[in-house]
């Protein structure tokens, strides 16, 4: 079912994709760092979020990002066999593939990507980002409608913010007080 086509994909002028990248601490985050210090160019479309391992990324995080309007989600981890926690990335692969299947029904599967990027692959990191950005540009903006908040039905409107805070804090391993 091509949901997005039905939604009449909005392609506004001057729009830049907004991509959320989960990078594992031991490889991909270091790879992103290397891309920076080596001055490899890549578009400023990506917000990098460091996680300890690619298997830390729950399907719920990905769905939440897409629901809240992210145009793409990238999950990057160590190459198979190199995971700091032995086989975390194998688990991540199963999970991300399942999430992709769930997204397929909504026509969203191309907005999620799983890549293996090692600490020495700064160039590859920049290529992945460039490539993904191009693909998202072709797909166009995320067609989710912003929810209409009805004062009666959502008395506590700050709820979403606290969830964001908490889930982000969880990702970083600290606690919200």
């Amino acid at each position, binding site marked *: *079912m*091509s*949901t997005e086509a*039905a*939604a009449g994909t909005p392609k506004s002028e001057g729009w830049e994709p907004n991509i959320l990248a989960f990078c594992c601490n031991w490889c991909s985050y270091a790879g992103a760092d290397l891309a920076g210090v080596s001055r490899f160019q890549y578009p400023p479309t990506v917000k990098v979020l460091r996680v300890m391992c690619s298997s830390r990324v*729950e*399907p*719920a*995080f990905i*769905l*939440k990002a*897409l*629901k809240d309007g992210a145009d793409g989600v990238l999950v990057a981890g160590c190459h198979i066999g190199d995971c700091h926690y032995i086989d975390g990335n194998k688990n991540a692969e*199963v999970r991300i593939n*399942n*999430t992709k*299947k*769930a997204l397929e*029904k*909504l026509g*969203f599967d191309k907005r999620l990507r799983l890549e293996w990027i090692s600490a020495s692959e700064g160039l590859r990191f920049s290529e992945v980002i460039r490539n993904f950005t191009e693909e998202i540009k072709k797909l166009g903006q995320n*067609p*989710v*409608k*912003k*929810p*209409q*908040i*009805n004062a*009666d*039905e*959502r*008395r*506590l*409107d700050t*709820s979403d913010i*606290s*969830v964001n805070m908490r889930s982000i804090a969880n990702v970083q391993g600290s606690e919200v007080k």
Partner: protein
Amino acid sequence: MSNVQSCYQCGKCTSICPMRRVSKTSPRSSIYNANIYGFETQDIWTCLTCGLCPQECPQQVDFLSFIREERQGKQPLAIAHLGVFTELAELSSRLNGNIAEKSGDSKIGFFPGCVDSLDLFLHDVKTNFGEITTSSVRLLDKLGMKPQVLNMKCCGHDVLWQGKKDVFNGLKEYNKKYIQESGIDTLVTSCAECYRTFSKDYDLGIKVIHTSQLWDKLGLKINQDVTYHDPCRLGRHMGEYDAPRKALTANGVTLKEMEHSKEKALCCGVSNFMNCNEQTKALRIARMNEAEATGAKTLITTCSKCLAHFNCLKNEKDAVKKYDFDVVDLSVFLARQLEAGK
């Protein structure tokens, strides 16, 4: 509005509440706090919405509506599996969807529910949820019914009971339109929660049937002992206790009832994916022990969530206790017997 004002604080509800056995949950005091002080208590979230307490209430307080209203717009205490199913439902409610797609002109529509996403996100429960759909379609075929399979969005049961009515309304609007355009006059579903939601929370104006209400006409000859768990949505919420039992006995099965059954059935512990913790696990163990005590080789249920929760306990890695009976969905059980008998 629920008639919660007529509560006279007798406490009968608290004394029957299954959560009360394992935690400090009190339906009585949650009414008191909400009514007298306008307080919010955690108890509105620990309630399983199992429907046991309204049965006992001398004042016929509609406790379930009260809980649902109290939850609206508030931040849930916890949602199991990090809310992945809620996120998925919310994401799909914010998309347009494609109504024009149709699979046939049959007057009967079959809705499989969320078995696909259960398969994808609960893969370590070691249960084939998709088999519920294939089995149901197989059995419908045996009865000469050729339904069109409805490719709708989630029915919205979980988000409704989690206090997200705006999301529910979005899903409902889409699904109602889908059902209207499909031109069906009977909606068949294999899930107890979908059955409750389409019957009571949608005003569809067409017939809604749970698959268990059809299977008594299958004419199978099964020589086996089983026990049956009443899901709260099919049993206490919809009052359907007999159809699944008839579906079993009419096909030759010997039914061994558990200590608590029908109106008194114990809860699986995790309705609408709200509470999965040490306390609700204790409830699941209690229920599985009852099933074990009947000596039956199979525990049958008619709700995909109950199935998931029992199998999760049964297939636990370092389980303290091993249960040597199978937990299967009614349609799956019958379809397997049909295949075996051929």
